[in-house]
């Protein structure tokens, strides 16, 4: 078990982190820029000091502020892959990979380059590599040492879009194939969903929520987490499967325990109509379109009204709507996921 329970101050920014990781899972730390993700990785790598707290990995104590224990980065056996890879510019790819080996061992370094599909680039210098290639060489440089703890900082941020899917597949495969503690940092929930088993959401230097990406989607505990995973999120008081929201409006859910409650609605479960819909939906109200945000094949429509909500509709479906226009919103009770606060 890896235990990290630390508080640190970096240039006035306060970080308060307490979480555990198991050796059989990949953990993603997700949060906006400035949430403290990179600071957390640097602390785990031993590059930055903590004010208080401990870091323990299996039976080794890496950090124990009260007893003055700080194991230096060179003795932690971490595999730190910083953002953009940060290869040594004066060394070729193969020499970068073998840098950490106790004796120069190009054969073993080459093996790892082959494994990541980079054998043809062994002699290339970092300035000759693409962002994705550099990222993978940096990954190989960390993996060749069989680290106890693997730390990836935004592994896809410096990879151009065209190569992202293939690089992500390789990173995913290596994360699965290399047992041990594996922690990656990303601002992108989709990346977390594709690479990690469990997600730690960081906001303003603190942990907002921990769980699988499904947990976060269906049961976010804060507006911030809901926003991150792209869900509509409401707080209210539940009674008889009806949630009364702060503004006076109500949402009917298929099933929600009485008492303080939270509720989510998937944007795709929201339907929009020009005419008042007839039929079964239990939640129907008239709203005003505040914004229309097209993406590749979907359009996100922001509707204000008694209940503010975001609906995801097809491009064709969105053609009927315009900003400032009125629209009927309908949500089935079975799509309102209610849970106790």
């Amino acid at each position, binding site marked *: 078990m890896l235990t990290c329970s630390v508080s640190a101050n970096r240039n006035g920014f306060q970080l308060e982190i307490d979480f555990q990781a198991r050796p059989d899972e990949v953990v993603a730390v997700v949060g906006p820029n400035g949430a403290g993700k990179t600071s957390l990785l640097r602390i785990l*790598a*031993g*590059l930055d000091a903590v004010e208080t707290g401990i870091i323990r990995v299996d039976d080794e104590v890496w950090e124990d502020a009260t007893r003055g224990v700080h194991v*230096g*980065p*060179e*003795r*932690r*056996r*971490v*595999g*730190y892959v*910083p953002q953009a890879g*940060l290869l*040594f*510019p*004066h060394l070729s790819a193969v020499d970068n990979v073998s*840098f*950490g080996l*106790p004796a120069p061992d190009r054969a073993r370094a080459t093996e790892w380059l082959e494994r990541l599909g980079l054998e043809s680039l062994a002699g290339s210098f970092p300035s000759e590599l693409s962002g994705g290639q550099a990222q993978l060489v940096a990954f190989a*440089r*960390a993996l060749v*040492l069989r680290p106890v703890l693997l730390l990836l900082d935004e592994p896809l941020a410096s990879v151009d879009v065209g190569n992202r899917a293939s690089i992500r597949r390789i990173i995913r495969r290596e994360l699965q194939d290399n047992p041990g503690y594996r922690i990656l940092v990303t601002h992108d929930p989709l990346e977390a969903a594709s690479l990690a088993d469990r997600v730690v959401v960081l906001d303003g230097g603190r942990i907002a929520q921990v769980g699988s990406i499904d947990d976060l989607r269906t049961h976010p505990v804060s507006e911030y987490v809901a926003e991150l995973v792209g869900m509509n999120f409401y707080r209210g008081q539940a009674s008889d499967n009806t949630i009364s929201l702060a503004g006076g409006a109500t949402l009917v859910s298929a099933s929600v325990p009485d008492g303080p409650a939270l509720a989510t609605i998937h944007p795709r479960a929201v339907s929009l109509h020009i005419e008042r819909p007839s039929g079964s939906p239990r939640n129907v109200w008239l709203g005003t379109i505040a914004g229309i945000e097209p993406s590749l094949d979907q359009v996100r429509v922001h509707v204000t009204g008694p209940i503010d909500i975001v609906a995801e509709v097809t491009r064709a479906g969105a053609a009927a709507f315009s900003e400032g226009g009125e629209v009927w919103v309908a949500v089935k009770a079975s799509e309102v996921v209610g849970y106790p606060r």
Partner: protein
Amino acid sequence: MKRLIPGRVGALASAGVLLLVVPFVGLLFRIPWTRIGNDVADSGTALRLSIVVSVLATIVALGVGVPLGWTLARGTFRGKALMRSAVLLPIVLPPVVAGSALLASLGRRGFLGSVIDDAVGITLPFTTAGAVIAAAFVALPFVALVSEAGFRASDERLEEVAATLGAGSWRRFRRVALPQAAPALIAGAALGWARALGEFGATITFAGNLEGRTQTLPLAIFFELQQDPEAAFSLSLILVLVSLAVLAAARHSWAR
């Protein structure tokens, strides 16, 4: 785009160039071209000594100046400002003062010199080793400051990555910091060497003017001026050419 130089700026800049170039033109007029070969041959000892002393001084200055530069660039400790002042001092100090200080401390009756004398029976003043120390003293600030700038400009995070890969501090310095700063280190070495080669005041004060032991080329030129100015001009030309060669060699590593 070709940028237009304002007339007054151009005129003043030209005056500056003239100030720098005219003395060398004057020098060329006075050089006895017919016997320059003989003059140079006669001063072979001083030239050789100059090269030996300046190269040794550069090695000494690099050996301590590069780590000093790294410490100034990366270190966080009390007294760093004081340390930088100490490094700058030899640049602003008149060399003759530097020589006096060396004499006062490392001379036979200096507090350190007397200890060394008693312990191993070596006296530094008026020896080649003394000339090397005087030259290293004045070259060191250039090596330290230029390498500090080099370390400052190179990415500290690379040294951090090296640490996470298991490299201890010495290995990080040697395998990551040094190669990163290499162009600056070469420039620093060139500047330091040029300064050591031209060293006069500290050398003559601390090491004296003993032919074959401490009389380097600049000292030889100075004393030749009083007896045979033409010969002095010939030797000056050699130093000008050597300096130009150093400039040309180091140019691409620090000039843009």
